[in-house]
């Protein structure tokens, strides 16, 4: 049984919605043509910062990262307005991953020790199908 992504509300969150697979062609006469190569948006990124959390909470991210075999496996982030998405009051789909798919770690989480028992963790996730 795998551990769910920690249900903590981040202190900062940056979301980049990615893009649809679009390719542009420029004709000899200067006219630009764009072709849609797929029906799903991809390469969404989510940067999460958890400032001044307990070392126990910080460790939970590393445990999850380990269970995901690092950047190998994907996972869900739970329901809107919970944990990772907490504090966001826009549409219910949040559009983080509106076309389905999952998130995986883009790189290993980083932890900065602030004082005994307190750490800051930064995480970057990437959406994929």
């Amino acid at each position, binding site marked *: 049984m795998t551990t769910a992504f920690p249900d903590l509300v981040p202190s*900062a969150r940056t979301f980049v919605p990615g893009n649809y697979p679009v390719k542009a062609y420029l004709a000899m006469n200067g006219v630009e043509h764009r072709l849609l190569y797929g029906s799903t948006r991809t390469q969404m990124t989510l940067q999460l910062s958890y400032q001044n959390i307990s070392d126990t909470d910080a460790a939970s991210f590393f445990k999850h990262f380990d269970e995901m075999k690092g950047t190998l496996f994907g996972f869900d982030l739970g329901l809107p307005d919970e944990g990772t998405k907490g504090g966001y009051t826009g549409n219910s789909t949040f559009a983080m991953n509106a076309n389905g798919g999952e998130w995986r770690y883009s790189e290993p989480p980083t932890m900065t020790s602030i004082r005994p028992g307190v750490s800051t963790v930064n995480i970057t996730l990437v959406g994929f199908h």
Partner: protein
Amino acid sequence: MASYFSGNNGALFFGGASGTDTTKPAGKKIGKVSNWSFQSSLGMLSTTSLGDTDETVIPGIRQQSGSFRLYYYNQADTTDEVYCKTVIDTLLKAQTLAADPGVAAEHLGFELRLQIDDTATSKYYVQGKVYLTNVSVAMAVGEVVAADCTFQVDGAFQQVTM
């Protein structure tokens, strides 16, 4: 007995080794002190999360620092008392070699006790290892020359009996 204190109850003590006056337990008294002060502050770490409307915090790191003013009193140290020069010389250092102006002896930390004398046996004080972080000596017409010093405590106070 309840009591207030004023400047004539104050004293500063320098160094870990005591003089011959056994009623002064820590270090030698610093002579000709005009004033002293210290403060202890606690930095706070923000734990505010997205969705919060008010900042939440947890305790961070404490810091102790302070200042004192010494009249520049031209007197050699005694077995029980040191004066301005000895104290400010922990920071003021002449260059080691004339050919190498960028090198001088290291600054020195020292034990400092800031004390309020109540009775001969009752005293209130804080004591810690400090480094002078600033020494400012000013000369002006109509004023006694004095050194304004600021210090920072290395870690927590070693003793607190306030």
